[in-house]
């Protein structure tokens, strides 16, 4: 009896071993596949159908190279958890998408020497601003793949209904406020404008830039910057819009409300384009309004780059793949899901003549002189968490904290 039980257990166990094994082995990891090719793990944060497109591009690379084999790993919204766990256990993917360089640079390979080998023309073909966002302390850690700036999306139907002129590229915030007022008054149950109740501090700094200030100076001092007169003006303006009732502070990004036709305008990245088209909306997009009497508005950049892990065993092969992934050919193919980052491709594809894309490039061109606080402050993620709370206190209707006091307190840390 006992023996039988034991043998059943062993059998069942062996069964699962075999089933779950799928080839098994691999305890020794020398970065080679069984047939001697250099093995490259490539991690993306894209989801669903986009991954299929990427898989096809990866397959093509594998066909063209008989000494390298790239495998695609797709982690979607859980990308950060996976990469963090991978770096913590010294087993990060060889090549990965990257945007948050301050947080991960330590685990990434410096790419300047690789870039230099490609000659000067190589580097110059990329939009210059993007290099700033793909490096830290003067060292480059990623090759730009895509980017988005923020721009003002508006609902054409709502503007028609309110009987007012659509936004233009030379709008100031005063124009936006006036339009938002009219929409709220004339369109039953609709609000003119929406912004996030709990904005990501990384994004929100662009409004401070536009008004001639920033969270901190180059040394990372908040006092005198975050609580400067200009900064307070910005927050006051948003809070007033909300309090006076022609803007709504949304719980999430505001995209749902905008697509549902509940709000007339919102500011967001080009990520929204796909879902707006899917929802069959009649929408337009222009540059972010500027502050009256100040220079052109600025936008934060959300850039995506391709990085190589410091611990990769096949860095040359990884670089080969990075070059392929950031080539003109693939920049062109990705149009629609990612905005090209090469001058030559933008020109050839006439991106600047496409009304749904042009504002993002124009914002890119006028935002080159700014560096986000996350690149200047150490331990940005903790500062961001506390800033986020301060901003929420200012915009949450159940607190509506005084702007000046809140920012003074926040700057004093």
């Amino acid at each position, binding site marked *: 009896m006992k023996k039988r039980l034991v043998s059943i257990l062993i059998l069942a166990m062996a069964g699962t071993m075999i089933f779950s094994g799928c080839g098994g082995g691999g305890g020794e990891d020398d970065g080679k596949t069984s047939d001697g090719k250099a093995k490259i793990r490539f991690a993306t944060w894209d989801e669903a159908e986009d991954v299929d497109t990427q898989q096809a591009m990866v397959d093509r690379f594998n066909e063209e190279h008989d000494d390298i084999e790239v495998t695609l790993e797709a982690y979607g919204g859980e990308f950060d958890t996976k990469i*963090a766990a991978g770096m913590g256990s010294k087993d990060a993917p060889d090549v990965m998408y990257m945007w948050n360089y301050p947080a991960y640079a330590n685990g990434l390979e410096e790419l300047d020497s690789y870039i230099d080998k490609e000659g000067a023309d190589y580097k110059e073909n990329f939009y210059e601003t993007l290099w700033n966002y793909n490096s830290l302390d003067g060292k480059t850690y990623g090759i730009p793949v895509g980017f988005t700036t923020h721009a003002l999306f508006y609902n054409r139907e709502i503007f028609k209904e309110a009987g007012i002129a659509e936004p233009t590229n030379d709008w100031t915030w005063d124009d936006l406020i006036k339009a938002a007022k009219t929409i709220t008054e004339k369109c039953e149950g609709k609000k003119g404008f929406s912004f996030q109740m709990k904005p990501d501090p990384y994004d929100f700094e662009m409004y401070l830039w536009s008004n001639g200030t920033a969270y901190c100076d180059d040394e990372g001092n908040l006092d005198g910057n975050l609580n400067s007169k200009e900064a307070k003006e910005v927050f006051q303006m948003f809070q007033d819009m909300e309090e006076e009732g022609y803007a709504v502070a949304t719980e999430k990004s505001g995209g749902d409300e905008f697509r549902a036709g509940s709000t007339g305008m919102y500011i967001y990245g080009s990520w929204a384009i796909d879902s707006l088209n899917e929802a069959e909306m009649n929408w337009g997009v222009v540059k972010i309004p500027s502050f009256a009497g100040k220079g052109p508005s600025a936008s934060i950049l959300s850039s995506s780059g391709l990085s190589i892990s410091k611990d990769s065993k096949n860095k040359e092969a990884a670089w080969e793949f990075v070059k392929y992934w950031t080539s003109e050919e693939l920049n062109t193919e990705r149009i629609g899901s990612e905005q090209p980052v090469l001058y030559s491709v933008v020109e050839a594809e006439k991106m600047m003549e496409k009304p749904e894309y042009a504002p993002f490039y124009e914002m890119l061109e006028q935002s080159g002189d700014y560096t986000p606080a996350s690149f200047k402050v150490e331990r940005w993620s903790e500062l961001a968490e506390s800033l986020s709370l301060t901003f929420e206190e200012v915009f949450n209707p159940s607190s509506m904290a005084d702007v000046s006091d809140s920012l003074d307190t926040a700057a004093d840390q």
Partner: protein
Amino acid sequence: MKQKKLMKTATPYLFILPWIIGFLVFTIGPLIFSLIMSFFDWPLTADPTFRGFGNYIEMFTKDKQFFKSLTISLKYAAIFVPLNMIIALFLAMLITQPVKGVKIFRTIYYIPTVISGVAVSILWGWILNGDYGVLNYLLSLIGIEGPKWLVDPAWAILAVIIASAFGVGSMMLIFYTDIKNIPIDVYEAASIDGASPARQFFSITLPIITPTILFNLITSIISSFQQVTLVMLLTGGGPLKSTYFYGLYTYNNAFKHHKLGYASANAWVMFIIILFLTALVFKSSSAWVFYETEAGGAGKKKKGGKKS
């Protein structure tokens, strides 16, 4: 003879051997590792550096969020644990009633437990949206202006409790299985004696299921401290950090701020707290949990004579 005696002493250990092996192979290493790491500064992308009790000192003296999150989680546990158990027990009693169609209700109550946590959290986020959510829309139809569930800190914790009570099905099923294990003749004897249903519940059902009550109590204390997915996706710890649970605090320290050493220290402090609470519950359990294997259990006499 000696061998037989050895066999006898060894038998219980043989039964628990699988767990002991598993513990030694899979569990103890990572546990000790995380304990050691709690004395290190480990920024994830770089090598750890030793900092003695630094993490613990920082937590207790400098980090205001530590106490805030701890309070929030204690508060949540204090409401959630008893509430969830009462609902689960109530449902379990309901679905054991011998009425027609009860099977269907059993399945209905169980459905939410089966739905993936990610989808549930996102769904509740929609339903509870203050301006455009379905719940407030329905309330507005009957003339009530619903609260801003996920915006007003006073309501947010309630929103989390409502959403988490949605998954009460597992606990219900545990109670249900246990209640179903009670032999029917125990009740039959009681109803002949003329005991009312309420009396039957308190004097028969409740004492017999105390072992599973203990189980549910302890495991739900643990899970309420480790609650992460729901708050992360539903409230993100907000509004105004009112639902910044201890579990989320630990998770964010590890994966958002990349302070793995510090997060390990967080986790071990939580461990001590849960261990203390569990020990307390266990200590008290000898007064209110009745096991058949121990002499003098409530159901003992009734069942004892039955087996022959």
